[in-house]
């Protein structure tokens, strides 16, 4: 009876996480619309795969050619460990920062443990996905280069291994985030504390992992570190052996691997079951109230009021803050680490900067984040132009901030000519405006207004992904002059000015489109979404 309930719960959670059924069910009215949506989704997925995987696979091929198989796999596993760890940090964070759904589940006759268990299974499922994404291409590249047979067995081992592999990094991430939240619960402004502490942990993790896992062109120390790491981390150690050894003994290692991972999972499950509810309860128990109401009755323009509201809501919600400001948090860290890698020069710098800015979803989820309160923008006498202006301004600030926080440290560290830094900064400013406008255009088209947990409005929002892709495409156009410059004999100044001109033109187009949209929406109702 109860196990049956657990499976219902789990199915619900997994569906929720994948969100596929809902995304397809949304335009279920017509079959053709669903087909079109599926097609665009596939196209976008393909584009994303291309953007991320082609460079990754090229890197892997390069590594496979350079190192011995043992070094190759320890590098790969270190990398996978890092990726799973960092992604798990993020999902553990959203696990702890949202409790709405629990409020609805707890009064139901379901064992409390099952609620956590289903959370944990979905959490682990996410970790497995990221592990598969990073490790299987590595094994495939390696298997492709193998002359002898045995490649299918290798891939099988890798896939099996990848499912078990995340136990350790995801457990570590879970424990760290639980400590962050337990600590924040002691502060008066607990959510702000959670945002700050969470960001600090993330920065430390990225700094540490990027440093260890950085694939320098010469490589020496990175390989040595990952070799010694794979001796310490049991999952890398066992998986390395399970893959490298071609005899039956490999399966013995696989067994050890499975058993130890299961033990870790069990430990986290019992630990989590014990602390999860308590931490969430503490986080929820009171919203930090200021005793003294600030009696600020200054009048502001509506656009400004919206802009300020955007800042406040984004920064006060852990889920929004993490998803919308992650670029701002990580930009300086990435700038410092990237500037020290062997490949550092000005052109990869601006590309990286634009990619970081593209990941910002403040604009592309601006309307969705309002959720059901969006009705207020309809029944209040606010001109669409005003509230859109306010939103665009807030998104622009976040974009520009992440761009500037990357470009200045990075380019100063690699000692670029100061004039060029200014040119790049101007490009960043124009690109920020462009991304803000296009993100808003996307979210205005079909905002996701029905959600219960704040994470749904950002992480599980199709508009966020779409905004990211559009921004990356615009970035590609903006950096074309650099590639032309690298190939031909164009002066550097000309190259920078060209890309700035492109960014400015894109910004002008974005502003114009947004303006048209704002005027056409005047007084619109929200029939379709109610």
């Amino acid at each position, binding site marked *: 009876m109860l196990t049956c309930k657990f499976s219902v719960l789990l199915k619900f959670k997994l569906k929720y996480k994948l969100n596929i059924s809902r995304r397809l069910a949304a335009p279920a009215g017509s079959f053709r619309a669903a087909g079109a949506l599926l097609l665009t989704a596939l196209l976008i997925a393909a584009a994303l795969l291309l953007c991320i995987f082609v460079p990754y696979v090229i890197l892997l091929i390069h590594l496979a050619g350079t190192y011995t198989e043992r070094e190759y796999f320890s590098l790969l596993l270190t990398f996978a460990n890092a990726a799973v760890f960092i992604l798990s940090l993020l999902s553990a964070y959203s696990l702890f920062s949202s409790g709405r759904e629990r409020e609805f589940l707890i009064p139901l006759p379901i064992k409390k443990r099952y609620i956590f268990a289903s959370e944990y299974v979905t959490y682990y499922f996410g970790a497995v996905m990221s592990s598969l994404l990073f490790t299987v291409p590595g094994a495939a590249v390696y298997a492709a280069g193998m002359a002898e047979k045995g490649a299918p067995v290798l891939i099988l081992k890798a896939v099996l291994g990848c499912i078990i592999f995340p136990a350790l990094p995801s457990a570590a991430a879970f424990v760290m985030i639980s400590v962050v939240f337990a600590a924040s619960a002691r502060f008066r402004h607990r959510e702000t504390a959670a945002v700050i502490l969470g960001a600090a942990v993330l920065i430390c993790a990225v700094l540490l992992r990027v440093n260890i896992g950085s694939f320098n062109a010469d490589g020496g120390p990175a390989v040595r570190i990952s070799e010694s790491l794979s001796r310490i981390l049991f999952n890398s150690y066992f998986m390395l052996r399970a893959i490298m050894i071609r005899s039956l003994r490999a399966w013995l290692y696989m067994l050890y691997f499975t058993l130890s991972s299961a033990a870790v999972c069990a430990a986290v499950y019992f630990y989590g079951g014990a602390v999860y509810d308590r931490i969430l309860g503490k986080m929820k128990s009171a919203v930090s109230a200021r005793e003294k109401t600030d009696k600020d009755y200054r009048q502001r323009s509506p656009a400004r009021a919206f802009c*300020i509201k955007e800042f*406040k*809501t984004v920064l006060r919600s852990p889920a929004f803050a993490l998803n919308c400001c992650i670029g701002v948090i990580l930009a300086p860290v990435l700038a410092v680490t990237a500037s020290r890698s062997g490949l550092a020069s000005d052109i990869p710098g601006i590309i990286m900067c634009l990619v970081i800015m593209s990941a910002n979803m403040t604009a592309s989820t601006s309307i969705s984040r309002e959720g059901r309160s969006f*009705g207020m923008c309809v029944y209040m*006498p606010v001109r669409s132009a005003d509230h859109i202006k306010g939103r665009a301004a807030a998104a622009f600030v976040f974009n520009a901030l992440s761009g500037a926080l990357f470009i200045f440290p990075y380019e100063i560290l690699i000692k670029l000519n100061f004039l060029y830094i200014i040119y790049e900064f101007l490009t960043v400013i124009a690109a920020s405006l462009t991304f803000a406008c296009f993100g808003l255009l996307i979210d205005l088209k079909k905002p996701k207004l029905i959600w219960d947990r704040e994470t749904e409005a950002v992480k599980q929002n199709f508009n966020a992904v779409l905004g990211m892709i559009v921004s990356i495409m615009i970035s590609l156009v903006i950096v074309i002059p650099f590639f032309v410059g690298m190939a031909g004999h164009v002066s550097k100044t000309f190259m920078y000015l060209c890309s700035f001109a492109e960014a400015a033109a894109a910004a002008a187009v974005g502003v114009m489109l947004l303006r048209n949209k704002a005027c056409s929406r005047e007084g619109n109702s929200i029939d379709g979404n109610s």
Partner: protein
Amino acid sequence: MLELVSVTKRYDIRSVPAVFDLNLKVDSGEIFGFIGPNGAGKTTTIKMMTGLLEPTEGNIMICGNDIRREPLKCKSAFGYVPDSPEIYERLTGIEYLNFIADVFGVGSSDRKQRIEKYAEMFEMTGVLGSQVRSYSKGMKQKLAIVGSLIHSPSLWILDEPMMGLDPMASHALKEEMREQSGNGCTVFFSTHVLEVAEKLCDRVGIIQNGMLAAVGTVDELKSKASAGESSLEDIFIGIMHGEGNAYV
């Protein structure tokens, strides 16, 4: 002040309309009670009045302006309290009120005076510094009420405003409705608490299955009623049992 001309709303083209051919006129300074059972179409009507929903047919005029043609003019004229207020959860009460005041362009001295007055009246002063998501349902309702009054509207639309209010707040709200109507503001509210409607309203409209079954002052309705129907409740029950034709 407020005029609905053969307003019809269908949520789905094929389905029966939620509101059908509704004609209604409410004058300045009047307190109008809009009563009907659950699912009668009260919220649908009110959402069309506020621009949240588009009527399938018909026009809605507020202060002589069509809500679809002059949305901003209409919207600056009314204050609206939704049936389940969805307020920005991450703002504090005072920030929310300031936000509303900014949108309506209320000057700083006016807003200060009104916020203080209404916060006092609804016993909100102590909690205005906390975030809205820590509020109970009734507190959110009260905040929405204060927010709807901040620009001193000339039409005050409330959708089942008594729901979730404690007796004190409910009393304060009724007093404020009288006060507003005395100052020339039109009050339009929906309810299914008949005693409130009977005591408070200048006129009432009874809606059933999306159609207006009766409209008039309580006394008018009583005089039209068959003998023995001496209270609004009796009239209401009578209409629900299908004796509606007598009242239109």
